[in-house]
């Protein structure tokens, strides 16, 4: 089976769908001729023509706004926000328009649209290249939100997103583009070629939206994570020697509640980790649904480890990033609680 980086897997997902369906068009800032600043669309314009993959003006609301019009026409646009931090000008188009079109028109018009964006920190990007805004999207009815943690899922989730008849937000942890990252920034980067999830099948396959997966089985504690924090949580469990079960949510909305519920009822303990800021983050929603579904099985309070409630700093990146030490420490506290 071919081995791919997450970038190559994302590029391949585009290529598979563009070859299969003439209605798939791809555009964004630097996306066409150059192939994207992270190279996720490299070669697509050459292969599929300028009609199908092209450069857009630096205008996020225009990119998403035109894509909504294209989706209403019958195309399946896949647009890239260069960084998740740049999506805010497009917020009105995403929230008031893309997410609402099916509902408000009673199905007269639909919006099969994918908005991809690199998310998260770990690359010394400072406050405008490091944010994790997923909770802003999960709060909006009518949107689906996914966060892959590896090349296999990145391709399968993106294909599923392109085939979905509703708007899907795909947040791609940029620190994972070239290799898994467990939070240990002093260690040399491990390439995806050495990781089992760097094995990516050729051709079309999907990772269905709404399905999480257990990355590490365990009996004592359930860790709910997604994106980069899946790898951090796995490494933290090893380092503190706790038999933790690490769940990679993969899709935030719709959420795989049966998987979460079964695991927490089994372990009786739950830790939630995300890179995004703590307050009103998606972790708060997870705490609420776990408490609601599993309260009488819980042996300890549910804890969260998240980014501090500050803007994402530059120099202090590794004090901000919720690394193994904080995640491992929280695991111990949940076990003691």
């Amino acid at each position, binding site marked *: 089976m071919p081995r791919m980086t997450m970038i190559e897997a994302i590029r391949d997902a585009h290529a598979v769908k563009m070859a299969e369906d003439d209605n798939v068009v791809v555009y964004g800032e630097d996306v066409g001729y150059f192939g994207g600043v992270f190279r996720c669309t490299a070669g697509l314009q050459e292969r599929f023509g300028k009609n199908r993959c092209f450069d857009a003006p630096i*205008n996020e609301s225009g990119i998403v706004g035109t894509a909504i*019009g294209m989706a209403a026409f019958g195309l399946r646009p896949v647009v890239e926000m260069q960084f998740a931090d740049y999506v805010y000008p497009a917020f009105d188009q995403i929230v*008031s328009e893309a997410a609402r*079109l099916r509902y408000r028109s009673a199905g007269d018009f639909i919006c099969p649209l994918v908005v991809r964006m690199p998310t998260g920190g770990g690359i010394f990007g400072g406050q405008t290249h490091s944010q994790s805004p997923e909770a802003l999207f999960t709060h909006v009815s009518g949107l*689906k939100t996914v966060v892959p943690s590896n090349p296999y899922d990145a391709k399968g989730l993106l294909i599923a997103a392109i085939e979905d008849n*509703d708007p899907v937000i795909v947040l791609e942890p940029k620190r994972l583009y070239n290799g898994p990252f467990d939070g240990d920034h002093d260690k040399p980067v491990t390439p995806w070629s050495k990781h089992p999830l760097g094995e990516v099948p050729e051709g079309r396959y999907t990772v269905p939206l709404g399905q999480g997966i257990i990355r590490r089985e365990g009996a004592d504690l359930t860790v709910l994570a997604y994106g980069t924090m899946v790898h951090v949580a796995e490494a933290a469990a090893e380092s503190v020697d706790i038999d933790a079960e690490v769940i990679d949510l993969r899709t935030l909305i*719709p959420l795989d509640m049966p998987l979460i519920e079964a695991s927490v009822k089994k372990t009786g303990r739950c830790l939630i980790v995300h890179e995004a800021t703590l307050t009103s983050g998606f972790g708060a929603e997870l705490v609420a649904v776990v408490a609601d579904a599993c309260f009488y099985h819980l042996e300890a309070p549910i804890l969260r480890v998240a980014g501090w409630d500050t803007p994402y700093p530059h120099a202090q990146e590794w004090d901000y990033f919720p690394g193994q030490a904080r995640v491992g420490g929280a695991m111990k506290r949940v076990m003691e609680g």
Partner: protein
Amino acid sequence: MSGGLRLHVPEPEVRPGGAPDFSGVKIAKAGSVRRPPVDVDPAEIRDMAYSIIRVLNRAGEAVGAWSGSLSDTELLAGLKTMMRVRAFDRRMLMAQRQGKTSFYMQCLGEEAIACAFRKALEPGDMNFPTYRQQGLLIADDYPLGDMMCQIYSNRRDPLKGRQLPIMYSSKAHGFFSISGNLATQFVQAVGWAMASAIKGGDRIAAAWIGDGSTAESDFHSGLVFASTYKAPVVLNIVNNQWAISTFQGIARGGSGTFAARGLGFGIPSLRVDGNDYLAVHAAAQWAVERARSNLGPTLIEWVTYRAAAHSTSDDPSAYRPKEETDAWPLGDPIKRLKNHLILKAVWSEERHVQAEAEIDAEILAAQKQAESHGTLHTGPRPSVRDMFEGVYEEMPPHLRRQRQEAGY
């Protein structure tokens, strides 16, 4: 502070209590503006963004190069369509006052723009309207009863009670779902047109926006994308002088006209008498032909006047003189077309009165039929169960749980 800086806040010519003054509105003589070929170099018609294309003169004659795009039969049909829109508005305004629905918006005085524009489009073309283009639907013979059921949010509401009154949607009639947020759909129209070009078809889009909303960034986004990709789209600005209580100068700023916004983008930009049914149709046809011939976008500022309140929640006497409507120099679109047709001896006062009565009866019958399916305040309303449908193609588990919790 001792510096000389002062903030400039534009003010309209007059406020309530003052005498209406439209001396600043420069009106070109009917027939005086040339009609260039559709493949004209935009640089050669920059002056047209500052003039006004008019066909009907004060005597009611159709004059100049833009006249002659419609036959007498088509003009008579157009007159009746505008009368139908006005009668529909009158009935629905009354229905709102009677408490049968929550909200209504008329297009009084602006009927010619949507009604004539629709006639320049083909089936399959798509409008991205604002809330004041009901004429697009009525001119395309969309069932009046369906519009009323939407306004009443009743059991037969095509939108299942999910949208504010008048936020219609009809793909079959080339009428994109109205959002209610301003300007957002201007750029979507450009995207729809880009999609049509990508697929190599011959369908075109029409974007709609009001003078006030041109200040939104989505308007400028629309111009950027339309200009860059030469999208087959007609970019319509309905300048009815008022954005709720805010006069057009607040959005226009230092630009001479709204049409002139297009010049920096290299988009051919016209300014047209929006109360002149013949001028509207001729200019629309010109822009539509440009779009369909792959010549790209056209920006059109339709100069008109919002003769009524912004909506049923607005009272314009608080911010503009009551006499302003009558003083508006471009007159009333229905009266002007009526006079033209009478002058041509294909219409008469008697037939006009008779047509008014027929149209009123038609609207009343549709209203009775619609009300038999319910009104917002008496019901029956769309089901609560249905409130949870259509958020996604398939209902996700969390919404199913919430529907059960709500008791459905």
